[in-house]
């Protein structure tokens, strides 16, 4: 069923339509929040918060404009921003930054470690980016959004989004290449 039809059903009180919509977009929202925060436990909570905000504000979604994906991602982006700006994060959340507990089933042990190392490098590079560059890069390279859509979601103009992506990519490369050089040196020693 199309998103528009599902939303119409939800507006008339259908729980099953809501279930379908959540199941359709859960992974998109969760993966965005996880890639933005790098924290699984936090991602569960913020994903739930995003969906609660969505259902509370569903009447404001203009069905004629379409693009529910952009709408829900915009809520996810703002939910993340609000969390990192909140006093809760500054006072409590900061102390609970978790270690990565990614469960990986590798073909063999060396594959597993190589994969894990590569993943950590990319994750670290993305998490080290400033918020505005991180969100632009995530939306572009994981959700294939158009520059105009990213501009709308992040409340910036298109040229700003382009420059954020460009500068963010430069930083990601520096971080990864820097890490690789360090690894080489370690191996040589």
């Amino acid at each position, binding site marked *: 069923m199309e998103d528009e039809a599902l939303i119409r059903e939800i507006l008339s009180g259908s729980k099953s339509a809501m279930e379908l919509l959540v199941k359709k977009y859960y992974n998109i929202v969760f993966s965005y929040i996880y890639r933005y925060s790098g924290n699984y436990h936090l991602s569960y909570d913020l994903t739930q918060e995003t969906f609660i905000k969505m*259902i509370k504000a569903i009447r404001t979604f203009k069905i004629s404009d379409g693009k529910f994906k952009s709408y829900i991602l915009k809520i996810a982006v703002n939910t993340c921003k609000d969390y990192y700006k909140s006093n809760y994060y500054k006072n409590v959340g900061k102390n609970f930054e978790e270690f990565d507990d990614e469960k990986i089933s590798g073909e063999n042990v060396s594959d597993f470690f190589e994969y894990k190392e590569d993943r950590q490098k990319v994750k670290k590079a993305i998490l080290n980016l400033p918020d505005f560059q991180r969100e632009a890069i995530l939306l572009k390279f994981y959700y294939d959004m158009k520059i105009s859509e990213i501009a709308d979601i992040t409340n910036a103009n298109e040229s700003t989004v382009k420059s954020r992506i460009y500068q963010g990519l430069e930083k990601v*490369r520096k971080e990864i290449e820097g890490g690789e050089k360090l690894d080489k040196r370690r191996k040589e020693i």
Partner: protein
Amino acid sequence: MIKEEKKFDIEEMDLPEGMTTDYLSDLFSKYTVNMPDECEIERVINSLSEYIPQKTKWYEKLYKNFKYFIERWNISLYSISHAYWIFTLCLYIFGFYIVYSNGVNPYITIMLISPLPFVLGILEVIKGREEGVLELEMSCRISNREMVFSKLTLAGIYNIILNTLLSIMLININENVDILKVTMVCLTPFTFVSAVSLYICSKTRGYYSCMACIFIWIAISFSISMSPKYINRFFSIDFFQYLLILISGVLLLIFNTKKFLKTNVLEKEVN
């Protein structure tokens, strides 16, 4: 572990030198995410059930809104000081008394008194805000915005009730008092003075600026009442002109109420 194949369109943007689509696709696909199991999705779905919009009939909606306002007014009612209610009531009794016993012009009396309860109501809101009572009062039961808004509406409704009662009493004691004229004479200053006071108070956000509004209004109305030329001009305006002034006054009042709520609620929330 199978990596996700990333596909994206980079035609519309420049990439740093040496970065190709394949390079980026390979790079970003390494940052994989373990998706939660069905139980977690079910948990979210269950938590959303209570927020699904319900189709309600218009009278149910009306009843819901009415109940909502009554609840908020009930809370605000106790946070407005007794002195406010007593003082404004005495003001109207005094107004009635001077018309009844001293034969003062009823139109001038009602014109002078009509905006005062609302302006004093603004004073109550500011007083609560400056004394920091607002945060205490709103503790979880009512939001800051709701508190300011319900206090203002309460003062407005109380003001209209007092104006109506005084008008009825003035009509009863004096046969020459025109019902339409008395309504216009009390509503026009009420809307305009309230709107101007809200504007000034949202700009200066001070207790004294609100007091100043009251004194300025009293000074203006006294000076008008002393000059027969202005009185005649004011009371000879025809009905449609009054109506036009009244409509613009109402619009101005709505606009400034929004402005007042913005400065007194949003700034407070940020701080």
